[in-house]
């Protein structure tokens, strides 16, 4: 009860300072966070830490016992925890508002090969769903289109911006594709009949089609381009190494084929998304330095005989094999559930992964996989001051209580549509 009152009081106080959804201005005054347990995001922990940042960049990371002048506003964070802002890959966050209202959804375009379709221009900074991320520590996401064989081009955004341009952390970071399946199903399973699994008749054909699409794109890009081909233009980055190819694929055979084919066609920056069977091809992944964006931990086993906790253990299995792993969101209710990404990491920790290693899934590993590790993902001098303070362990829903949050040193509002309603109705009963 006490807790409850404190939290209300706290939220009321910040509520009066910041209006909902108004992005914070550029950092003008310095900040010092003192006394917290700092989880650097690279596996290291500094108890009783001292972190300072100015002009949007981290200027100091060290021990609070160090005798050094504290700069600007000092946040006393004794007994609290400080983390780099959490980063979540592969989500449609900002591309839709209410699932059942079609008018509010912009997540999939028609067509098979859509590399030119760019998520960034549909990213809605004013989304009520987007603002609900920040109170949980999720500050950066890869906003990703769905559909087709090549779904389109994703971009990486920070979650406190006036418009999509301001939100960009990295524009057009990657092209996403859904790898064809080597098996096909038949049978009216919804009518209680079994689904018959057969080798897909079209698998090789689909692979050949994709292969020749890549070859055509390469040929086009080498030519004089007198007649513009928008999809091929959009794939330039794949061949010159400035963009990554995120291949959404799960099966052991398919992962092997995906890597072999992409390499052969001159694509070297590959990320495996989902990677259900990734552990079975771990050697291939390690050898080619290919990371995996895993699914959420909160899902059911794929088959009746599968271990009940296999979905909880996959991160541990892959990390043990030496693979760089992060967490993606694709699936049911992915937008609103993105705020639960810290708890997926926590669940992966509950089932075997070291806690700091689990933290990496949504900090340094995610930054590396998304190619933004020069700026974010760890608490290091010179990096963006994108970080937050939590009352307790932020991977645990029981203790994840964000009290201060910054993007590029800008102090964020933690207000949301939801906190406003909470206050409004708490007040209603208080005043009755």
């Amino acid at each position, binding site marked *: 009860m006490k807790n409850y009152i404190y939290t209300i009081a706290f939220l009321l106080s910040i509520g009066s300072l910041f209006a909902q959804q108004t992005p914070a201005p550029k950092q003008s005054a310095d900040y010092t966070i003192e006394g917290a347990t700092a989880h650097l995001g690279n596996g290291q922990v500094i108890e009783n830490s001292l972190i300072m940042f100015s002009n949007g960049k981290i200027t100091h990371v060290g021990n609070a016992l160090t005798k050094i002048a504290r700069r600007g506003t000092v946040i006393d964070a004794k007994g609290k925890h400080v983390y780099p802002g959490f980063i979540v890959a592969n989500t449609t966050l900002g591309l839709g508002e209410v699932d059942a209202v079609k008018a509010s959804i912009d997540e999939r375009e028609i067509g098979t090969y859509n590399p030119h379709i760019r998520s960034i221009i549909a990213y809605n900074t004013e989304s009520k769903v987007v603002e609900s991320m920040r109170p949980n520590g999720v500050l950066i996401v890869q906003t990703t289109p769905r559909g087709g064989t090549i779904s389109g081009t994703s971009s990486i955004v920070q979650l406190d911006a006036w418009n999509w341009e301001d939100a960009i952390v990295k524009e057009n970071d990657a092209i996403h594709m859904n790898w064809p399946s080597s098996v096909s199903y038949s049978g009216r399973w919804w009518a209680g009949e079994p689904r018959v699994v057969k080798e897909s008749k079209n698998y090789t054909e689909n692979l050949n089609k994709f292969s020749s699409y890549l070859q055509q794109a390469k040929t086009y890009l080498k030519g004089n381009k007198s007649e513009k081909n928008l999809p091929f233009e959009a794939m330039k980055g794949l061949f010159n190494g400035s963009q990554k190819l995120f291949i959404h694929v799960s099966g052991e055979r398919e992962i092997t084929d995906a890597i072999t084919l992409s390499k052969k066609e001159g694509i070297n920056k590959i990320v495996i998304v989902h990677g259900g069977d990734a552990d079975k091809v771990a050697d291939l992944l390690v050898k080619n330095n290919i990371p995996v964006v895993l699914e959420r931990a909160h899902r059911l086993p794929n088959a009746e005989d599968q271990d009940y906790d296999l979905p909880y253990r996959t991160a541990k299995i892959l990390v043990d094999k030496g693979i760089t792993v992060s967490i993606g969101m694709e699936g049911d209710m992915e937008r609103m559930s993105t705020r639960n990404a810290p708890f997926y990491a926590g669940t992966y920790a509950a089932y075997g992964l070291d806690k700091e290693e689990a933290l990496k899934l949504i900090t340094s590993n995610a930054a590396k996989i998304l190619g933004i590790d020069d700026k974010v993902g760890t608490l290091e001098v010179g990096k963006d001051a994108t970080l937050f303070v939590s009352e307790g362990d932020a991977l645990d829903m029981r203790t994840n209580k964000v009290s201060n949050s910054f993007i590029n040193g800008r102090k964020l509002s933690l207000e949301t549509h939801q906190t406003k309603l909470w206050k409004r*109705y708490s007040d209603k009963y208080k005043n009755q």
Partner: protein
Amino acid sequence: MKKHLLWLLFLCTSILSAQEYFPKDDGVKTPNNKTIAFTKATIYITPTNVIKNGTLLVKNGKVVNVGRSVSIPKDAQIVNLEGKNIYPSFIDAYTDFGIAKPKRQRGNPNASPQYEPERKGYYWNDHIRPETNPIADFKFDAKKAKDLLKAGFGVVNTHMQDGIIRGNGLLVSLNTQTTNAYRVLEDKSAQYLSFTKSNKSRQMYPGSLMGSIALLRQTYNDADWYLKGNTKNKDLALEALDRNKNLPQIFYAGSKINAFRADKIGDEFGIQYTIVGGGDEFERINDVRATNATFIIPINFRAAYDVSNPYLAQHVSLHDMRKWNQEPTNPKVLAENGVTFSLTTHSLKKVDDFTKNIQKAIKYGLDKTKALEALTTVPAKILGKSNIGNLQTGSYANFLITSGDIFDPKTTLYENWTLGDKNVINDMNVKDIAGNYALALNGKTYDLSITGKGAKQKGALKLDDKKVKSKFSFKDGWIFMSIPSENDATKFNRLTAKITDSPVILGKVINEFGNESQWSAAKIVKKDDEKSKDKKKKDNNSTPTVLPVSYPNVGFGLAQQPKQETILFKNATVWTGEKEGNLENTDVLIKNGKIAKIGKNISVGGAKTIDATGKYVTAGIIDEHSHIATTSVNEWAQNSTAEVTIEDVVDPNDVNIYRNLAGGVTSIQILHGSANPIGGRSAIIKLKWGENADNLIYNNTPKFIKFALGENVKQSRSRNGTRFPQTRMGVEQMYIDYFTRAKQYDAKKKSGQAYRKDAELETLAEIINKERFISCHSYVQSEINMLMKVAEKFDFNINTFTHILEGYKVADKMKEHGVGGSTFSDWWAYKYEVNDAIPYNAAIMHNQGVTVAINSDDAEMSRRLNQEAAKTVKYGGMSEEEAWKMVTLNPAKLLHIDNKVGSLKVGKDADVVLWNTNPLSVYAKPLKTIIEGRTYFDIDADLAKREAIKAERSKLENMMLHEKINGGKVQPPSKRVKELFHCETLK
């Protein structure tokens, strides 16, 4: 083509047997009432009454005498059957022989759903068709008859396989030589039922299995009301139902679980159905026996799965692999457990497979006498006929003549007699010439090997151990062969020979120049014997390995129910959920399925002691809103379906029960979905993995029903909604209407007047009488408020608002009304009406004094409800004690089971979870989940189980690969998909 012509010719002869009083214009009268005596045979008068060296006397299609010393009339034709056997021919009591099933009408997908029936003057529901008499649609199917005759059948019962009540059947002889005037032995034999709707009507109701069950019950009630003369209208369907009531009632269940469901309906109305099973009865044999029903069992044993591609093979569940291995034991298990059953060709792709499959069942241990009974006396008894299925005097002369034991694969079926008419299957006069011969031709000696049976014998030729390309045929007692000339392989010798009784075959050869000479072939006796002996040995050695069944029969099933133990947890952190709060270093004793003691330093002899130092002991989690462990969720085809109940469709085989246990869940309410304002009744169950459906349901279970409000019930996302109501305004009026009618109904019932028993109004009256409680799916404040007002108008309370995402807006009113809230921790933004859903909802409602639970509505979330409860600590600052109650004591209160479960209190059920750490932490894992002192989940036992599954899968995969490599039949791998239900699933 030739075959067809012969068949036609065969049919033409049948015109001979015209009815006696019919005019005759094609010749003189040729009466044919001769007596035939089959002598010196082994005769199975019944499966258990067998005579050796007996005589069967047949006249006018009937058996006139049978026995060891039968006097044979002088004018009788005598057929000497020395060394041969005679059996009554087989009966199939469940077929659609000669009756085409109506095709489903393809409708316009954009058309509005059809709620009304298409027939007039019949029952209100088109899927109740007891008036169906298929005699008018019956067309004797000569081709199918031939297949059935070949498999040994003589009589089948057939019916229109369409609808829930399907009308009566026909008993038909398979005699191909006569007309329907003689073949149809009975035109009203048995009434058939099923759970499946008719293809003849597009009427939507029932839209689910539980709807079919409710409809059957209501039909019986309505028939009773109608026949007592209480209605003004004419109902031809109910009248037909009454006419059929003394016929045998045959219910097509198609699976063990549906068999239990059907049997239960029968029990309620004093009807013992004969049940058509699914071949999976061995998986729950005790429950099958307990039905006391006679079964009709298909023997459609599946082929092995082709597991040679491991990427595909991984999709096949252990359950399906096991079934390949275990299914052939089904008839044996039924027989050994005293279940009376007959066998049917139903569900076989080819009737040809029947013989093979029954031999397989016998190889897997089915007693041959039981097998014969299952094909003769039992189906006769099911159909209430004493003159078929046996060869007693007076019975129909339907019998088989074989070379020996009818179930021996080496035996030849010679003739299948129907109504005293002969059908030759294999000519018994054809000599069996199988064997190895030394063939002498033009000075050379070839090896001739003849294999096969009857007219299908094949020959292969070798010279000096090398295969010689040659042609062999054996027809009408003559051998014809073409053998290449020894000088020029492109020229040929043609050999002929007539088979005689002599051991040496002698014949004529015409060489490539047209010159004739002699050839001969002598049987090599010794070699042949050796070979067959070897083969026999092999056959005998390959008694099949059958893996044991588990309960349920899936990978994580249990060999038996866990034992109830006395368990002492020592030195735990105990979250009582009671006023004692959370206790450190405390012991918990459970005994006789109850919590016996909570305190410090408990010691007791004979208890299993578990050191729980550093660990947590809590009550099991309770999920107020679940849709796992059920076969259907929504009876969506009417706006009110209070007549249906999930209790009818609980599915104890759902692996999500086990997964829930692994998440510390011990009790759940399986709710009906949210497709209609008045939904169906709930099932409140304990997750006793391995038990049958009935044993999962609480004893004296509280009565609940699902109601629903908002977007789902007004069909917001349907393009062609025509069902009332389409707005929240209509929803209110619908409730008022139904409760008004229920009140009137109840008043009439209580007044002692005669009343039409209506399961729907009966249920609603229970609500008004405060005997049944509502859990109502709800989102926005306006409708929440409305329903409370409607309830108050009828002087009862809503028990629970489930989902209740805007409960925080009217928490004060909820408190005042006395309703509880069962909500999601943080779901929102999935539809328009959850725009204002906030994760602080639980905390606000709690703070206003509402009893609040956190539920799942989801098979995935339900196995980590501890984490969801923890979110109320984050959002809204609930204390850990209160947060924990939201998934234990509070849902127990909302479900009226808090006197038994929900907290750790002496005397309550020992539904207990042992956790590795603070159960509200994301790092918490259940180590043991216990229900009534039985450990249903144990983290170490689970590890062992995984290894066992891996080993068993490999074992079965190897068996299937062995089958494939040795030429056995295989099928592509398939995956049984368990559909995951939510509120909105229309099923």
